[in-house]
C-alpha cells in the first residue's frame, strides 16, 4: 500500500472530514485535478470508490484482475438494441490503469466545433497548447520503439499502407514500453504511465489525502451552494461499512460520464435545464479478427502502436489491439471442440477494431438501488459506418493474407475472400445482431456557454451550483473521435487552475 492512501481496512469508525477542495474520483480527470490543486497549495482530499493496486498486484490473469480494477468486473452494459458492453476502471487511477494508454490531443476540427457551436472560446490550439504540453510531459507521451511492435501489427500496417491508407503511429502514455501487452490488466512493469503512477504520487507528495473504497452517495448543498458530501466507506473483504461525511466548499466531481450525472441526479443538483445525463456519447467499437497462415505473435508486442486515421473525417478510426486469449475467446460463436480448435490458432490471430465517432447520443439515469441506467441507440448513419468500416477493415486483413476474418455479426460470423465483403450490409447484418463494445463514455454534463443547453460553464463550474465543478469526460460537449484521456486531463487541469486563481473567492464565501 502506498503511504498516504487510507484504505477502508484502516477505518474503524464513522468519518467526518474537512478539506478545502474535495475531488471525487481518481481517474484521468480527478487525478490530474488533485495533483494540480495539491501542488497549488490547497488542502485537497480525494475519494475513490475502488481500491489501490500497484504493479505487484497485477497478476496478468483476467479473471483475477477484472473484479479488482474494472467496474462490474468488466461486464457493464449500455442498454439499447444491441446492448453495448462498456468497460471502465474502478480503482486508484481509474480507467488509465486498464486502458491502452493512447494519448491524443483534442483534434483542431473538434476544438472549432466546440468554439462555434458550444461557445467554448478558450478551446483554441494556442490556449490549449501549454496544457497539452503539460499533460504530455506528465504522462511521458511518446511513440513506440520499433522493437516493441509485434510482427502482426507490422503486417497489418504494411497491408493498410499498400491499400493507400495513411497509418499513424500512436501517441501513448508510456516510459520505455517494451510491449508486454497486458495493458488491459494493469501494466506489470509500471511502464504505462497511468494516473496511479504519475499524478497520484505527486498529489500525495504535495500533501493530498486519499481515501479508497469510499463511495459518495450525495452531494450536500445549502441554497444551491455546495457544502460537502455524504457516503460510505466499505471494506471490500469484510463487508464492514462506515458512514462518511466530508465538509468542503469546493467539490470537483470526476466519477466518469456515467457515475457523475447519476450522482448529480441523486443529489438533485445542477439539473434545472434537465441536461444532466443527456448527451451521452460513447465512441462505439466493433472488432474483427484475422486468422493467418503464419504466426502473427500479436501478444509479443505493444497493445496498439498504430491507428489508421485515414477515415477520421468519415467518422471512424481503425487500429490493431492485441489482447490475452481469455479476452478474445468470448467473441467467437463456436463452442466445445470447435472453439478450442480455433483458439489453438491464437498465435496466428490478429485482433483489430474500429472506433466510431458518435452521430447520435443517449442518456444516463440514476435508478433506485444504486443502479445507473445508460441508454444508447445506434442510428442509421452509424450503422452505415459500421458496414463501411468493417468492409475496409476486413479488406485490410484479406489483403495482408488472412485466411478468414471473424466478424462481430451473429449471422455473418466470418468472411473468407473479397467477394464476401459485399455481404457486410443490411441484407446480412441487422442492427441488433452486432457485437459492440466501448471504453469511452462522454458528454453527460456538457460544458458550454448556454445555461439552457449546457450543465457546466467554461470555468468547469456548474451553471446552477457555485462551488461544484465537473472534471471528467462528462464535460465533453461532443464526441472527439480520438482517445480522450489527454482532452479530459487538459480540461481538468485548466479547471484546477481556475480554482487556484479564485481560491479566496470560493473559500471566503
Amino acid at each position: 500500500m502506498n503511504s498516504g492512501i487510507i484504505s477502508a481496512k484502516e477505518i474503524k469508525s464513522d468519518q467526518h472530514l474537512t478539506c478545502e477542495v474535495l475531488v471525487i474520483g481518481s481517474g484521468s480527470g480527478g487525478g490530474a485535478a488533485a495533483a494540480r490543486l495539491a501542488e497549488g497549495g490547497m488542502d485537497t482530499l480525494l475519494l475513490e470508490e475502488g481500491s489501490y493496486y500497484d504493479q505487484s498486484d497485477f497478476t496478468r490473469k483476467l479473471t483475477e484482475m477484472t473484479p479488482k480494477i474494472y467496474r462490474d468486473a468488466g461486464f457493464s452494459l449500455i442498454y439499447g438494441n444491441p446492448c453495448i458492453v462498456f468497460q471502465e476502471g474502478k480503482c486508484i487511477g481509474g480507467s488509465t490503469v486498464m486502458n491502452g494508454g493512447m494519448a491524443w490531443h483534442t483534434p483542431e476540427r473538434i476544438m472549432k466545433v466546440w468554439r462555434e457551436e458550444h461557445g467554448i472560446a478558450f478551446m483554441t490550439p494556442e490556449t490549449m497548447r501549454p496544457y497539452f504540453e503539460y499533460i504530455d510531459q506528465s504522462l511521458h507521451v511518446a511513440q513506440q520503439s520499433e522493437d516493441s511492435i509485434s510482427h502482426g501489427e507490422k503486417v497489418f500496417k504494411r497491408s493498410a499502407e499498400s491499400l493507400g491508407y495513411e497509418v499513424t503511429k500512436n501517441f501513448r502514455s508510456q516510459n520505455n514500453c517494451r510491449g508486454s501487452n497486458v495493458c488491459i490488466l494493469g501494466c506489470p512493469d509500471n511502464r504505462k504511465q497511468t494516473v496511479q503512477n504519475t499524478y497520484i504520487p505527486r498529489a500525495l507528495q504535495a500533501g493530498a489525502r486519499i481515501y479508497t473504497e469510499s463511495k459518495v452517495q450525495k452531494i450536500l448543498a445549502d441554497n444551491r451552494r455546495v457544502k460537502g458530501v455524504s457516503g460510505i466507506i466499505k471494506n471490500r473483504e469484510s463487508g464492514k461499512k462506515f458512514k462518511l461525511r466530508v465538509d468542503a466548499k469546493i467539490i470537483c466531481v470526476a466519477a466518469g460520464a456515467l457515475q457523475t450525472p447519476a450522482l448529480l441526479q441523486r443529489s438533485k443538483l445542477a439539473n434545472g435545464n434537465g441536461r444532466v445525463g443527456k448527451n451521452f456519447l460513447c465512441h462505439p467499437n466493433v472488432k474483427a479478427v484475422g486468422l493467418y497462415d503464419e504466426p502473427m505473435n500479436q501478444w509479443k508486442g505493444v497493445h496498439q502502436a498504430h491507428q489508421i486515421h485515414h477515415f477520421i473525417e468519415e467518422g471512424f478510426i481503425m487500429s490493431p489491439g492485441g489482447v490475452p486469449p481469455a479476452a478474445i475467446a468470448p467473441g467467437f460463436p463456436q463452442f466445445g471442440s470447435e472453439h478450442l480448435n480455433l483458439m489453438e490458432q491464437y498465435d496466428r490471430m490478429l485482433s483489430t477494431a474500429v472506433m466510431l465517432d458518435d452521430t447520435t447520443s443517449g442518456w444516463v439515469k440514476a435508478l433506485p438501488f444504486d443502479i445507473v441506467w445508460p441508454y444508447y441507440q445506434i442510428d442509421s448513419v452509424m450503422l452505415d459506418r459500421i458496414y463501411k468500416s468493417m468492409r475496409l477493415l476486413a479488406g485490410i486483413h484479406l489483403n495482408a493474407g488472412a485466411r478468414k476474418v471473424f466478424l462481430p455479426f451473429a449471422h455473418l460470423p466470418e468472411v473468407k475472400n473479397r467477394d464476401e465483403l459485399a455481404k457486410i450490409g443490411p441484407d446480412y447484418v441487422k442492427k441488433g445482431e452486432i457485437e459492440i463494445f466501448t471504453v469511452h463514455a462522454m458528454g453527460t454534463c456538457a460544458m458550454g456557454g448556454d445555461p439552457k443547453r449546457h450543465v457546466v460553464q467554461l470555468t468547469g463550474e456548474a451553471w446552477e451550483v457555485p462551488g461544484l465543478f465537473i472534471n471528467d469526460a462528462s464535460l465533453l460537449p461532443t464526441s472527439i473521435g480520438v482517445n480522450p484521456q489527454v482532452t479530459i486531463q487538459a480540461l481538468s487541469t485548466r479547471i484546477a487552475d481556475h480554482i487556484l486563481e479564485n481560491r479566496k473567492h470560493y473559500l471566503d464565501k
Partner: protein
Amino acid sequence: MKIRFFTFEKQTYLKFCQVVLPRNERLNLAIEDEIVEKINHMLPNLPILIQLGIHFALALLEIGSLAKYRCRFKNLGQENSHIYIYQWIHSSFPLLRDLSKILNGLVLVHFYDDPRVMQHLGYSINDHIQHVNSLPEIKS
C-alpha cells in the same frame, strides 16, 4: 443484489459447462466444477441485471428442456444437450442468444484464463514479460 447460485442452479450451469467447455483430443481438462465455482465467486461483482439474467437463463434452460425433451436439462443425453445449446447460441431470438452468450462467455473467460490452457495455446506471457524486461532500455 448478491445472490450466489442455489444448488440446482449450480447443477444446471455444470451441465451447460460440460456441453460448451472447449476440449479436444489434444487438451481435455475436466475443470467444469472448478469453473462453475469460480463463476459463482465472481457473480457478486457483476451488474445486477446480468446477475438476474444469469439466474433467469439457468431457469429457462431447465424449463426449455422440460418442455422440449420432457427431461431436466442436467439429465439430457449428450447429443440432445449439444443440439439444445447450439439452438440457443444460434437462435434468431435475441434474448436466447444474449443469455447464452453471457453463460458461455463466463465459461470461456475462465477456461482460457487457466494457466494449463494458456500454456497449451503457447501463450507464455510471464516468459515474454521476463524477456522484454531483460532487453536494454531503448528510448521510445
